[in-house]
């Protein structure tokens, strides 16, 4: 029996859609942080700030959703069946693009309170649906999956090194933004936010361990 650990080699930043997703995430997060600072310093009034943040999150969701099927986050040879996995990625991308467009329409035209409530529900609903469908797709992790060549798995692992933390960070930002709207108690928001941060970190560590574990070929 031959057992091998997947090594992804040095991190390559040459994948264009992945690069676009990372830059969009960092750019929009920085823009949102800068706007929040400006709001706290009194340069922007509260309602305008909330609308601007909603538009920024909407744009980020559209760009990440658009590039998602191209970045192939579910490409894990030996774990996911390639056809259905690509289909799940494509569907998730479409959902995020539609949700992002809804965010922009809501924050541009709807009354602010309605926009915040509906967008929070849409964001959380989309994330839960995508997470559930992807978890179902990755059920090969539990059953053991098929054996694939080491080269294929290493190629996929190289891409995963960047896409996994990026998607988890994106989900964290989106779920925190939605939670701030839905939960009005500031102390509770901070506490839940901290637990969510820990949860996402543990999920990342768990996924890395499971996806890069030793596989034995008899």
């Amino acid at each position, binding site marked *: 029996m031959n057992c091998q650990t997947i090594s992804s080699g040095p991190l390559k930043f040459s994948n264009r859609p992945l690069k676009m997703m990372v830059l969009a995430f960092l750019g929009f997060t920085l823009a949102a942080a800068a706007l929040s600072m400006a709001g706290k310093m009194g340069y922007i009034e509260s309602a305008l700030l909330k609308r601007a943040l909603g538009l920024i999150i909407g744009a980020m969701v559209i760009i990440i*959703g658009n590039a998602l*099927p*191209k970045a192939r986050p579910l490409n894990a040879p030996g774990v996911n069946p390639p056809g259905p996995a690509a289909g799940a990625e494509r569907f998730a*991308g479409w959902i995020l693009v539609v949700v992002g467009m809804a965010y922009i329409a809501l924050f541009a035209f709807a009354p602010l309170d309605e926009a915040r409530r509906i967008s929070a529900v849409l964001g959380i609903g989309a994330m839960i649906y995508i997470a559930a469908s992807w978890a179902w797709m990755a059920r090969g992790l539990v059953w053991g999956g098929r054996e694939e*060549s080491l080269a*294929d798995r290493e190629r996929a692992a190289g891409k995963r090194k960047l896409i996994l933390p990026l998607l988890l960070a994106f989900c964290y930002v989106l779920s925190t933004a939605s939670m701030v709207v839905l939960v009005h108690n500031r102390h509770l928001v901070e506490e839940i936010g901290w637990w969510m941060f820990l949860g996402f970190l543990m999920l990342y560590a768990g996924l890395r361990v499971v996806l890069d574990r030793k596989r034995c070929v008899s």
Partner: protein
Amino acid sequence: MSRVFKALSDPTRRRVLELLRQRPMSAGDLADHFDVSKPAMSAHFAVLREAGLIDSQKHGKSVIYELQMSVLEDALLGFAQAFGWKLQESKSTKRKTLNREVFNS
């Protein structure tokens, strides 16, 4: 983006993308669906790969192609299929494709 429009302008290439939507396929499996010579089919694959719409991996002796389209490109393909776009390829592009076919055969 012009590469994407060029790739989507041809009905054969659109059909290839439609087939790859179902599952990744080898070059031979894809070629079986068309009444086109192998060099011409290779030229179509090259155009799609250049546009970043498909990705290829070598599995032993065969090359497996799989779809790699963003949501926007997917929507463009849907529009092209629905309205049957047939964009004009430039003369130079046609000449290049023809030269490649003659060279390969």
